[in-house]
């Protein structure tokens, strides 16, 4: 079973300076606007993009997990329980959320990644449902359906300057920004490293890879665990941002949403695709929900995904479109070669 075999690499097409400029501008957003609605949309999109990066990393090994929201739930619950119920400070709890989520991902991965392909997807669905059911019924720890009201991180004072998370969204925005940049650097480096290349070879031809002495399970589990850690961070930060966690937040449809975001952005680029996909879909969904036409967001959401799949070749998503646009408009036509499966490392 082969998933995500073809990658068209457009990453060198858009000049780095433009990407840098966009990042710099995004960093300056709070100077232009402190609107709660705008900042919230950007913060949520950023947090989802981290989960999407994790999803794409698992996809690199040829598997797709439909239970990623469960890891967000685990991360969210760990941080909420540690800060609210045990009274620990926020930042250590945040780190613990990622670590525990990663450990659970490791354990689950060791058991369920043996079954690859469709079976793996379905097991992850069942895993997500079980996490939800446990969260709902383990009242002593998770407080069941009442959920846990999370606390914002304590104010940080540097000299006369106080960073207060409780009173406004700008610190939330900047920490999201930092978190996305950090995860992006991590996933980008992993993706172009030797390990990333091995992930692709595991996906492209498992039998051949195994014959070459690559331990399939090992790499699948590595990808799944790394994704688990960062998805845990995303979950921990997300519940702090929306200020509550309960079992109803991270259900099956959120996992599906993560998958859709990766598709719309384009799983070819682990960072660009994730960020573009989550920002486009989240903002669009948010905007459409406020329209007076009930249910239109479901219709558009589905339509966008199908149209992107149909009209952008080989499921390469919006990032690829951007690369193409750039090449057509700004760059002189030149021979562009699609790199082969195993030549990723020679690229940079």
């Amino acid at each position: 079973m082969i998933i995500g075999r073809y990658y068209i690499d457009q990453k060198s097409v858009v000049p780095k300076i433009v990407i840098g400029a966009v990042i710099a501008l995004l960093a300056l957003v709070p100077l232009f606007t402190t609107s709660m609605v705008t900042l919230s949309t950007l913060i949520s999109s950023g947090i989802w993009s981290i989960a999407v990066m994790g999803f794409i990393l698992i996809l690199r090994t040829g598997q797709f997990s439909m239970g990623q929201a469960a890891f967000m739930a685990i991360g969210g619950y760990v941080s909420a329980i540690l800060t609210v119920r045990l009274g620990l400070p926020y930042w250590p709890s945040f780190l613990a959320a990622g670590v525990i989520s990663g450990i659970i991902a490791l354990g689950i991965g060791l058991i369920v990644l043996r079954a690859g392909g469709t079976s793996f997807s379905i097991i992850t669905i069942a895993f997500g449902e079980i996490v939800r059911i446990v969260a709902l019924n383990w009242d002593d720890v998770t407080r069941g359906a009442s959920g846990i009201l999370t606390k914002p991180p304590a104010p940080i004072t540097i000299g006369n300057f106080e960073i207060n998370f409780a009173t406004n969204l700008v610190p939330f925005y900047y920490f999201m920004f930092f978190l996305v940049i950090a995860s992006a650097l991590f996933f980008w480096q992993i993706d172009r490293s030797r390990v990333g290349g091995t992930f692709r070879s595991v996906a492209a031809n498992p039998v051949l890879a195994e014959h070459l002495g690559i331990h399939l399970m090992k790499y699948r589990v590595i990808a799944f665990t790394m994704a688990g850690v960062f998805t845990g961070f995303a979950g921990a930060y997300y519940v702090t941002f929306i200020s509550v966690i309960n079992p109803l937040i991270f259900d099956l449809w959120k996992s599906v949403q993560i998958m859709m975001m990766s598709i719309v952005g384009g799983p070819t680029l682990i960072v660009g695709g994730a960020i573009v996909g989550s920002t486009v879909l989240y903002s669009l969904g948010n905007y459409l929900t406020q329209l007076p036409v009930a249910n239109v967001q479901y219709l558009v959401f589905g339509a966008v995904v199908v149209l992107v799949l149909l009209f952008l070749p080989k499921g390469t998503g919006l990032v690829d479109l951007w690369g193409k646009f750039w090449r057509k408009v700004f760059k002189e036509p030149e021979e562009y070669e699609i790199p082969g499966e195993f030549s990723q490392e020679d690229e940079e």
Partner: protein
Amino acid sequence: MPPAGIWIDGLVQSCIYMTMAFGMVLVFSILGILNWTHGQFYMLGAFVVYYAVTAAGVPFPLSLLISGVIVGALGMVVEKLVIERLTGPGYGLLAVTAATMALIFFFEGAAGMAFGLMAKGMATTLPGVLDMGSFSISYQKIAVIIFTLVIMVAMYIVLNRTKVGKAIRATAQQPDAASLYGVNVGWVSLIVMGIGCSLAAMAGGIMGPVQSVDPFMGRIPMIMSLLAIVIGGLGSLTGAIVGGIILGLLNSVIAYKISYFSEVALFLLVIVILLIRPQGLFGAAPK
């Protein structure tokens, strides 16, 4: 021993999951994909029957056939426009999985906008309850059971006695060899998708009077039939039937014993089966 009412309830549910899972497995065995939109065809079928019966005054059995034809045609359109273009060389499983999942939202959104979100009902179709002394059964549920028997016999005849059926079975076993012998695999895919979707639509239609009709009614049968074919084995028609029966009983007889914990039992069963026997109870060993 659970009372007769529970067994009847389980039987009715088994019938529906069986019919749904049968269509899904049929599509899987030819196209090699899971059609995640199957539940939404069930929902659309129920709406077609609802409007045929209440607005146009068509008799119920006829409107079931109409919904089968209309939604079957819609399934063929989806196969032609979406699935066919997203399978084949260059596409992984992700593309078509994501597309059929996106269609869930698309159809639910469209149905909500077109038909409204409030539940609709057809309780006036086949009203009444047959009192059998110690237990009772409604005519609507009897209709579901008869319908499923008819469908299963019809499917048996189609698959075993007709040319189309033989082409379908040949393609399921060996697509390359089948096409060498002159079977048009593209056509077979289209026909199978049509049959699968019309089965889902008719299942939705026959359940319309039993439940209420609303845009989100397809989600649970979809998940249940998915789990049924996972338990029974991907690609196995017998497995779909057995899986449907197991799930129907789990949701009634086991639920009667352990109440809402049957949900946990359900997911644990699926995980255990997938880990111990990934090909399911009746599936062939993985290729």
